[in-house]
């Protein structure tokens, strides 16, 4: 009998493994419960319910963006603010994947591990949240975008706080349009273009090529080039918008000479270009307070000479999100190392160590401080001497670079501008895209101007 019992030892081991598995499951459940339960598939949250007693979401100044009253979700009283903040805050559904009300659905609707989503509605106390955005700046940026499709990102490159994050087309979450699925005007309205869309970055990418060249090509700053408007580089034509004549490095950046940077990117080669692009956020995931953004792409493994040349000026197959572009500018502004953007300032009663909410996070160095200094100076000169200082901003010292990205199919080019302000009291990095806006100078700068001026007013009045 004794032998029989001792031979049951493997079964005992199996049973112990079974108990260990149960413990593993419960630990896993405890650690991931909040993120699992806020998945968009969750029927408890996505059937349009779950927010009746959810917590209040406010902006940086305490302006209520969304709150629940008597079992109803109400958004800000100002329709313009509601529309401007839609993609940040979200609506009753979970259609906007990057919105706070989607990603933090379980927190604001009162999820906790003990009661899950099962406590009676009267017992549920959804956590309130404070965001870093400023509703007034949101509104200004939204109005400046007007009927255009596009996106605006403005963030404080010292603290990482996102002050403005607007995407159009948008709609009113309080009165969701019934024809949203069918009306072309709302096409892609569920997408926060600043985070989830990638576009060819066009000439704004020259900042990366320039940084790489400054770091690895000797005396590149004094290199002269005679721009005739186009040149056969790598077997095919590379063309500029206009012939700039004889130009040096700084002028090439200022006048955005494609030929000049095409030559530089060929000289740098695929490896250095790829390394630099990846250092500046390409081919990497960028997650902002748990919100996943699209990945910017730079891939020249299959490119021929001409295509590599085009990649150096942000064409070929290069794709970038507006948020990544803003981070690049923040790096230039901040001596080469960016402070990463964040949007959640505070969640009531929830201290999730995984999320590390509410504190500044420094990213990886993108360039050396001296290169950042040189690029800053060149970008400031570009604003002052080429775009016009007051055209960009009458109250900030701005460094910027525009881009006009060809999209093909006979459609007008996408208009870009990215940059930052040098003012100590208003450390703002920004990027703006206006889809099919034709010209970065004409379409994107006015939007950026409205957004950063409003942000400057907001920051200065607060301090």
């Amino acid at each position: 009998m004794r032998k029989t019992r001792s031979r049951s030892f493997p079964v005992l081991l199996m049973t112990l493994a079974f108990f260990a598995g149960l413990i593993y499951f419960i630990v896993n459940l405890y650690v991931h419960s909040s993120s699992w339960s806020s998945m968009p598939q969750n029927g408890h949250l996505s059937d349009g319910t779950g927010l009746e007693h959810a917590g209040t979401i406010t902006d940086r100044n305490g302006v209520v963006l969304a709150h629940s009253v008597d079992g109803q979700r109400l958004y800000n009283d100002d329709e313009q603010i509601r529309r401007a903040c839609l993609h940040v805050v979200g609506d009753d559904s979970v259609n906007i994947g990057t919105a706070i009300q989607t990603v933090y659905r379980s927190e604001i609707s009162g999820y906790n591990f003990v009661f899950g989503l099962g406590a009676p509605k009267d017992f549920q106390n959804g956590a309130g949240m404070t965001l870093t955005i400023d509703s007034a700046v949101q509104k200004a940026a939204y109005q400046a975008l007007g009927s255009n499709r596009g996106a605006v990102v403005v963030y404080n490159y010292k603290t990482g706080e996102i002050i403005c994050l607007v995407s159009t087309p948008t709609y009113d979450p309080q009165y969701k349009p019934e024809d949203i699925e069918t009306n072309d005007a709302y096409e892609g309205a569920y997408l926060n273009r600043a985070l989830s869309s990638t576009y060819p970055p066009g000439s704004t990418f020259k900042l990366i090529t320039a940084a790489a060249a400054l770091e690895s090509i000797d005396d590149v700053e004094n290199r002269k080039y005679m721009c005739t408007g186009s040149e056969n580089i790598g077997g095919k034509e590379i063309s500029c918008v206009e012939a700039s004549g004889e130009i040096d490095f700084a002028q090439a950046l200022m006048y955005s000479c494609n030929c000049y940077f095409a030559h530089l990117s060929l000289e740098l080669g695929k490896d250095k270009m790829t390394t630099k692009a990846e250092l500046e956020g390409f081919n990497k995931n960028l997650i902002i307070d748990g919100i996943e953004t699209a990945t910017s792409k730079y891939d020249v493994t299959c490119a021929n000479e001409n295509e590599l040349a085009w990649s150096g000026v942000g064409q070929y197959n290069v794709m970038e999100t507006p948020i990544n572009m803003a981070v690049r500018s923040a790096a230039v502004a901040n001596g080469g190392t960016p402070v990463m953007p964040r949007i959640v300032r505070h969640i009531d009663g929830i201290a999730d160590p995984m999320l590390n909410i509410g504190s500044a996070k420094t990213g990886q160095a993108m360039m050396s401080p001296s290169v950042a200094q040189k690029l800053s100076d060149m970008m400031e000169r570009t604003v002052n001497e080429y775009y016009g200082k007051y055209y960009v901003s009458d109250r900030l010292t701005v460094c910027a670079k525009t881009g006009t990205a060809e999209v093909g199919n006979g459609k007008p080019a996408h208009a870009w501008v990215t940059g930052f302000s040098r003012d100590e009291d208003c450390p703002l990095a920004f990027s703006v895209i206006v889809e099919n806006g034709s010209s970065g100078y004409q379409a994107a700068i006015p939007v950026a101007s409205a957004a950063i001026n409003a942000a400057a007013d907001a920051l200065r009045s607060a301090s």
Partner: protein
Amino acid sequence: MEETVQVLSFFLRLVEPFIAIIITVMCFISLRGSRRREEPLIVLEDEQEEIGYPVLYWENSIGRSRNSDICIQDMTVSRDHAVLLRRNDGWFITDTGSKSGVYVNGEKVEERQQVAIGDRIRIGTTCLVLRRASEAGANVSRRNIRKSIPSPLILAIITLYVSVFAMQTLFNTGAMEAAICAGAFIAEIWVFFAVSAIAFKRPNIELEALAMLLTGTGIMVSTAHNPRQAFVQLAASAVGVGLYFFILWFIEIPDRVSKWYIIISVLSLVLLASTLVIGTSINGAKNWIVLGPVSIQPSEFAKIAYIFVGASTLDVLQTKKSFTMFIAVSALTIGILVLMSDFGSAVIFFVTFLIISFMRSGDIKTVILAVTAALLGVVIMLTVKPYIAQRFEAWGHVWEYADSSGYQQVNSLIYSASGGMFGVGTGLGWLQYLFASENDLVFCLICEEDGCILALLTAAIIGGFMLYARGVATRARSTFYSISACSAAGLLVFQAALNIFGVTDILPLTGVTLPFVSYGGSSLAACWGLLAFIKAADERTYSRHRPKKTVSSEKPRRSTAQDEGFVEI
């Protein structure tokens, strides 16, 4: 009004797992506390050496091997020489193929032979005398075995549990079927108790109470979503209880069972094979036989037959060391299951085979050989039918396959997390709308609707069955019961592991049922059948047949020996 109902249902949900915990703890404490102590009642005395060998078990191996229950240091004794065993009519000794033979009072033992107090048993050159432990001066104290908790009390708490469950469901969904099912189930457990305690005079009911707790949870979870399923479960549990009583009766005399060994194997194999021919394919596996309105899964019942065939009494184990027949039955069974594409069951049978063959022989070589053969089989399978591997593509990274092969697991995790510790309320979950929610996903369904405490408790009870089976392994009336109880419990635990860990992405999803809880009539009935094996390992189960200590006037010598059994409560 609606809010009041919500709050009421919420408080019932808070109470529910605590009642279940109380029942579980009570039952396991009672089971453990009321076990017999391992103390000898008879002793084999070596008069020359003046050594007394205490006889501790119902079946005792005697031999030179250090692992023998009675180890005799004598070179003329074979390693596994003989077995001294106790049956209802007294003590017996069997020679298990020894070289020098066994002699009782000078006569050579040919078959199993009864022995009595004072008999001289010669093994090799050692001569042993059978004595009462009290005479031999062993310390015998018939003392404080804790009383088991009264069965009616346990059943009353289960009644409360089921009522709370039903009330909660009623508040949530307003489905009157909940009350009907609960009423019917409560009636069933009390009738069960009456039959067990009065008709069969079985003193304790803890094991069955735990199984009732699991069965009741399964039924109550079903009522909220699909009352028809709940009624099927109810009917199946009645069939299962019947099967349980039948098997307990059938295996009462372990020596009798071995005579049925071949008939049962053949029946089981024929039933399985006939499924291949006349069976119906439901959800990808051709393992159903449809008889009018009833469809049954023969593979579930084959599990019971398989345990029968695998277990043996100690004297048989020691005499016939090879078990070719059992290996042949195993290979055929698993082969047929693979042909049916019922891979989940095939794996369960394979693991059960490993458990049984190791418990029989202690031979690690057989196990290694079997595992190697199985791995080879899997490799060949995957080469011939590579699409089978696709079933496992999502394993370990289900979130990447959230809309395809990881759909069930992803939803199970999401909704398990949504339930918290007390659940969102029976009938108010979302997982119920998924395919196979009441069988494959039932663990997570309970997590979502009734909280992870209750879900984990159901799993822990199944694990507890195994710990219990092992705890009584040496106290059982025969190795037949020890082996069958451990392998039946092991089978249940392994099946539970496949079910729970499959759906929570710890193991690949195989689509087997959670024992006792999942919806599935054949499965539930078969689980009750398997429970009978665990119950049979408890020596008190058959105590009604043991006459009370009344001295029989005729044949005093024999009856004295008969009384030297173990303490019974």
